[in-house]
């Protein structure tokens, strides 16, 4: 048991899984709960979500995305399969590396979506930065579409992550 607890690679794996649960948990909260529910909330109650809940959820969401990818890359490097995974090990007969590589690329694309498209547009949509009022609906729609793209990618990404551990 001690060798597991004090093994740096295992600790990084634990950090990767914890931040991944936080990230994808919040992604699923946004897509299963917040986005479908917002249109049904009376206008006078909407600020409860847009001013208080969403900014806090987005704070953990975007940093968990960054942490998940960073710890995942460190983990792959520590275990010596970073290059094999990122090149998908095409034709080399190693399903584990191909699976984890596909999962890693989907995770990297999803994290880029978070920081480049979702967060900047959410800041405008939620009024956290100064922007013309007429730009808010377009920003909200762009953020929603990229969030939904990540939601869609989360299913095959998780298949790859779990599959690589069991291939």
């Amino acid at each position: 048991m001690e060798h597991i607890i004090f093994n740096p690679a295992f600790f990084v794996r634990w950090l990767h899984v914890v931040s991944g649960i936080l990230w994808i948990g919040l992604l699923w909260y946004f897509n299963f709960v917040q986005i479908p529910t917002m249109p049904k909330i009376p206008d006078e109650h909407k600020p409860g979500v847009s001013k208080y809940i969403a900014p806090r959820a987005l704070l953990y969401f975007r940093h968990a995305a960054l942490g998940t990818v960073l710890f995942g890359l460190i983990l792959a490097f520590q275990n010596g399969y970073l290059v094999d995974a990122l090149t998908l090990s095409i034709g080399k007969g190693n399903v584990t590396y191909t699976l984890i590589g596909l999962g890693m690329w989907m995770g990297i694309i999803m994290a880029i979506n978070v920081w480049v498209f979702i967060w900047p547009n959410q800041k405008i949509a939620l009024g956290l930065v100064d922007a013309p009022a007429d730009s808010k609906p377009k920003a909200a729609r762009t953020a929603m579409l990229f969030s939904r793209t990540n939601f869609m990618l989360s299913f095959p990404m998780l298949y790859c992550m779990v599959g690589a551990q069991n291939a």
Partner: protein
Amino acid sequence: MGKILQSMELTILAGLVLTVIVAVVTPMLAG
């Protein structure tokens, strides 16, 4: 694609279809 992503149910369905595609294609890619 935009129309699919506007619907939560269709997005989940698209995610499941992608998962099946990944499951089928991965062994072929690995060789």
